[in-house]
């Protein structure tokens, strides 16, 4: 080959071995950690110590672990909720709003019905209300999309702000506790999710959801319809599937689970309703979903990892007074490396020298 041959070329790699995939992923994680060290040095901290604090504050003690699990629950729940939508190539980025609406519905019953029924029934009613409301909220853009071809990405995104706005209005208006406080009263303890091993029992619910979602996506007719529709609308039509029905049903299911997450957060964690109940979970869950490549079991690990990082960040702030935003940077670096490493799994680089050698060998 002459000097015009490019220095590096990219070639597709088919069927990388399991071993290779994991080697690349672990290497990417290591690179992320190393890059993170540079950030710590720039921030004026001892990187080894900083990582140490992150681990001890999140996994080193019981309260840390509890906090991690508490943070992981909504991430995992919402990640699971988004999976069928993304499999269908329906870009639901409205989880934030669906969570908020679910929480709002649950709150209505928590505030108004707590004296009328025993705790278990009340919680059940709240759960069902959150499912229904989250589902309806999510069905709206789906109906518009399949009827009139609107763009669901923009639609679901805009619905977030409406949902948050509604709750903000309730907070300062009809549902306000002490006049002028801008706060909705705390729930009666009958409306609070009971604890199991120190964390509200939402973790049991999301683990059940993991199994449900795995079976739903892989072994049911609905799951098959979703997969086919995601690949090609024409094929789905040809196979006699009702596009409108499948789209709306899937979006509603997704929104319903998001709504349930909202209920768990409002009842189990905040014990009240705030307009910021979703707190960005709806967006972070998109990352969880994609990093896991829509696999429910992988989502467990990834939501746990992200929760460890965020708890570690608050540890950094209190112990080493490193701003928590540094940990957001670290999280970003890890995500970038983990997503970027997929490139090295699917492609390989060919360098000029090596190629020339190969050429000679062949000749």
């Amino acid at each position: 080959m002459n000097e015009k041959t490019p220095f590096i070329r990219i070639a597709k790699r088919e069927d990388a071995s399991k071993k290779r995939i994991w080697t690349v992923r672990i290497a990417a994680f290591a690179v992320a950690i190393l890059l993170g060290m540079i950030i710590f040095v720039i921030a004026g901290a001892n990187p080894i110590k900083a990582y140490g604090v992150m681990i001890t504050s999140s996994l080193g003690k019981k309260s840390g672990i509890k906090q991690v699990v508490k943070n992981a629950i909504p991430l995992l729940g919402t990640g699971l909720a988004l999976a069928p939508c993304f499999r269908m190539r329906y870009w639901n980025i409205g989880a934030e709003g669906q969570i908020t609406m679910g929480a709002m519905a649950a709150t209505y019953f928590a505030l108004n019905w707590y004296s009328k029924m025993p705790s278990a029934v009340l919680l059940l009613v709240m759960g069902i209300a959150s499912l229904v409301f989250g589902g309806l909220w999510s069905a709206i853009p789906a109906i518009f999309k399949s009827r009139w071809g609107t763009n669901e990405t923009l639609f679901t995104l805009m619905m977030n702000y409406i949902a948050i706005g509604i709750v903000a209005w309730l907070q300062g208006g009809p549902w306000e506790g002490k006049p002028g406080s801008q706060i909705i009263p705390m729930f009666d303890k009958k409306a609070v999710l009971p604890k199991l091993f120190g964390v509200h029992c939402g973790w049991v619910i999301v683990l059940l959801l993991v199994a449900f979602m795995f079976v739903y996506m892989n072994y049911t007719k609905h799951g098959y319809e979703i997969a086919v529709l995601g690949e090609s609308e024409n094929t789905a039509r040809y196979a006699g599937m009702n596009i409108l029905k499948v789209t709306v049903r899937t979006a509603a299911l997704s929104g319903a689970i998001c709504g349930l997450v909202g209920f768990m957060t409002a009842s189990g964690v905040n014990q009240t309703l705030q307009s910021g109940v979703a707190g960005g979970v709806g967006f972070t869950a998109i990352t969880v979903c994609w990093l896991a490549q829509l696999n429910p079991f992988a989502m467990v690990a990834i939501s746990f990892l992200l929760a460890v990082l965020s708890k570690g960040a608050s540890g950094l702030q209190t112990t080493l007074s490193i701003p928590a935003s540094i940990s957001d940077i670290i999280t970003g670096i890890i995500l970038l490396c983990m997503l970027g490493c997929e490139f090295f799994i699917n492609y390989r680089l060919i360098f000029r020298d090596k190629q020339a050698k190969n050429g000679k060998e062949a000749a």
Partner: protein
Amino acid sequence: MENHAIEFRGITKRFGSVTANNNVDLYVDKGTIMSLLGENGSGKTTLMNMLAGIYMPDEGQIYVDGKPVSILSPKDAFDNGVGMIHQHFKLIDVFTAAENVALGINEGKYDLKDVAAKVTEICNKYGFDIDPAKKIYDMSVSEKQTVEIIKVLYRGANTLILDEPTAVLTPQETSKLFSIMKTMKEDGKAIIIITHKLNEVMEISDVVAVLRKGEHIATVKTSETNPQQLTEMMVGRAVELDIARKDPVNPVPRLTISNLTCRNSDGVVKLNNVSFVANGGEILGIAGIAGSGQKELLEAVAGLNKIDSGSIIYTPEGKEPAELVGLSPMKIKEAGVALAFVPEDRLGMGLVGGMGMTGNMMLRSWNKGKGPFIDRKGPEKLAADVFEFLEVKTPHIDYPVRKLSGGNVQKVLVGREIATSPSVLMSAYAVRGLDINTSYVIYDLMCEQKEKGTAVVFVGEDLDVLLQLCDRILVLCGGEVSGIVDARTTTKEEIGLLMTSVGGKEEN
């Protein structure tokens, strides 16, 4: 001795674990038309793409006019006098012919008049008939192809590569193209034509290069070979090139279509007052220039296209006739009307690219059975049967069909449709892009269905095949039926004329 126009030496190209070209040595001389022949996946297009600057060879060297060259981009290819006319035209619809020719030329002043004058000059020299000021969207397929060729000549190409140029042309247009190719050859150009049609190979080319599984098998003079020998070289063993067409036994009307009119989503009439009868035990061919309403017709019958007016009466064996218009696709399918539709992109309809064979078999059965769970056992068995019976080449039956070669994808699709033992089997472009061997497997399957009493509707592109395979041929032109002829007595020329005219009148 004069240098070869193009020479490949030891060219190897791999995609992942697949070797598309292995150590290919091949040359073509100036003033020669070479046919590049090979089954699907034999590496013809890959080899040509390396010449056109779309891929880089992993190993080996390309020589142009005796000099070693490195072709990194289509621009490099042009600089070396190599131009490729792709199967899918790369033209801007709203531009004129001259504007399209000028596109991408970055030298000198942008002077459209000058370009137009040069285009006219090229037209006169080679006998093209094109108006430089005509917009692309006003052009027929054949005219668009001409613009592509002029584009390449304008850039001073000495070597032209044509990738399946006749797939979209009528017989008349094809012979016009061939006469132009001959003029170019006399002008000293080297021409490489990729084609599947053996009769065209014999007609147009001076030499034939045969590729098989990425390797160059031989280059032979066309005058010293014959279709049978070429096929054997391509396939690697003897192949029967005859279609065993039996006379229809007791044909009874199965589908009676009367006055069918359809529009597409833009409100344009795609089918106008179409009436015909498809009989059981008979193959009804449908011929026509691409986009004459073939797709809409099949989709209308399958319930996928909205119908403006008309009726489709379906008479299953031993049952009362029933109206299909207004039924859902599901109901129509359950009644026994199967559609093995192979659209342009093959995977767009009928198959799910990301799924394996089993997943694709499920498209037919997913809704069967009670309860929320899907049955995998039945489709798995069907997939295994199709895999075995049609010799689908796949690493395992759950390997994504998108990664299979075109022929194998087709086998999966047709295999599944036949497995439902339909009483009407409609297939469109069932052999598009398939190699000879696989095509004949598909033809045999169609004949088998016919003998079982199925009404087969076969939309085809290759008129020679339609003439050999079908019992009757319906010709569509601009969404209207321009004639229904007996396949045993008609000629290619007669069909060619019907393809461009309704009721004997010339269109336009």
